[in-house]
């Protein structure tokens, strides 16, 4: 969720306000450092990589999309920097960068550490709008579950979408019937499709929607 307060802070930094910059660093440094420490043992490197992430954020501050949360954006930059670092240290998973038939490493999806538009959308404005619409639909869906305290449905679809589990695996974790999970998934897919249509978007631009229903 994006707080007004957060947007104001970014606006002040865009205007060159030093206090706002210190405030932002102080506010997010701790959580980012803890996140890095979960992946990198050397604590001094963690501080470096967190500082580099702040610099990455600052470098693109004028293009910051106010509809995004600062925290998600910073975690995204940091996570890409960690992947790069681990790869340099040779500790990354070999299959993270696929190799083509002649043995050359293919370009990975982690090219731009600041996760700018170029990485996620390749400068394609249409794709950006489609993805933004999907973010909105998912936000509405999650919010509906939370408002109605329908946490079982939220848990089901979170296990399926976020953790990539099958209906059966999710059902086992939640100690419920496989069919109930399937109905939750179906409900979520329909909700997203209906809302995409309301936004005048064709659900066919998201092949994942139908795929995920079949993939049970």
């Amino acid at each position, binding site marked *: 969720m994006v707080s007004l307060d957060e947007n104001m802070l970014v606006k002040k930094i865009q205007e060159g306000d030093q206090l706002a910059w210190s405030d932002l660093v102080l506010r997010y440094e701790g*959580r980012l450092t803890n996140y890095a420490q979960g992946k990198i043992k050397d604590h001094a490197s963690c501080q470096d990589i967190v*500082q580099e992430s702040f610099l990455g954020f600052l470098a693109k501050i004028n293009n910051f999309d106010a509809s995004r*949360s600062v925290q998600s954006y910073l975690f995204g930059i940091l996570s890409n920097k960690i992947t790069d670092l681990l790869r340099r240290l040779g500790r990354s998973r070999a299959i993270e960068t696929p190799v083509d038939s002649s043995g050359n490493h293919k370009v990975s999806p982690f090219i731009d550490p600041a996760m700018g538009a170029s990485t996620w*959308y390749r400068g394609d404005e249409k794709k950006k709008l489609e993805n933004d619409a999907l973010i909105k639909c998912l936000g509405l869906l999650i919010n509906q579950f939370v408002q109605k305290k329908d946490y079982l449905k939220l848990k089901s679809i979170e296990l399926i979408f976020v*953790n990539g589990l099958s209906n059966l695996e999710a059902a086992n974790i939640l100690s419920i019937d496989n069919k109930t999970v399937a109905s939750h998934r179906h409900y979520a897919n329909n909700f997203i499709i209906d809302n995409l249509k309301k936004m005048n978007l064709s659900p066919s631009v998201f092949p994942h929607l139908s795929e995920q229903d079949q993939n049970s």
Partner: protein
Amino acid sequence: MTISNATLDAFIDDHLNEQETIKVEKAVRESPELQALLSSIIASRDMGDHSIGAIWRREHLSCPTREELSSYKEEALDPQRIDYIKFHLETVGCKACKANLSDLNCTKGSLKNADAHEKHRQFLENSKILLPKKQ
């Protein structure tokens, strides 16, 4: 563990826990089909096509706010919400929320020693020149 598109997608985002990651790595190493699937997912992401899971993870769509995590720590939320946050942290295994919670639990702050404090001070000092110029 069934390895579907969505599992590989979560794997690319480094979202799986250690055990699951090892299982997926092994399966991918042994199966040319899974290798091809993994490459195709990476390629379509590169074209700007992202799955629901990738978008959900990246935007932290179901993450409780920092304030809620703080109340969770104090158990000052309704029991259903507490139960959900526990699930989000432990079962879903959200690394960003775990990092937030450890930060909230850390009374000393993230700067554990004098060196770290000095590095932080220098960083703020040096990075100020990179701020956009005041109009």
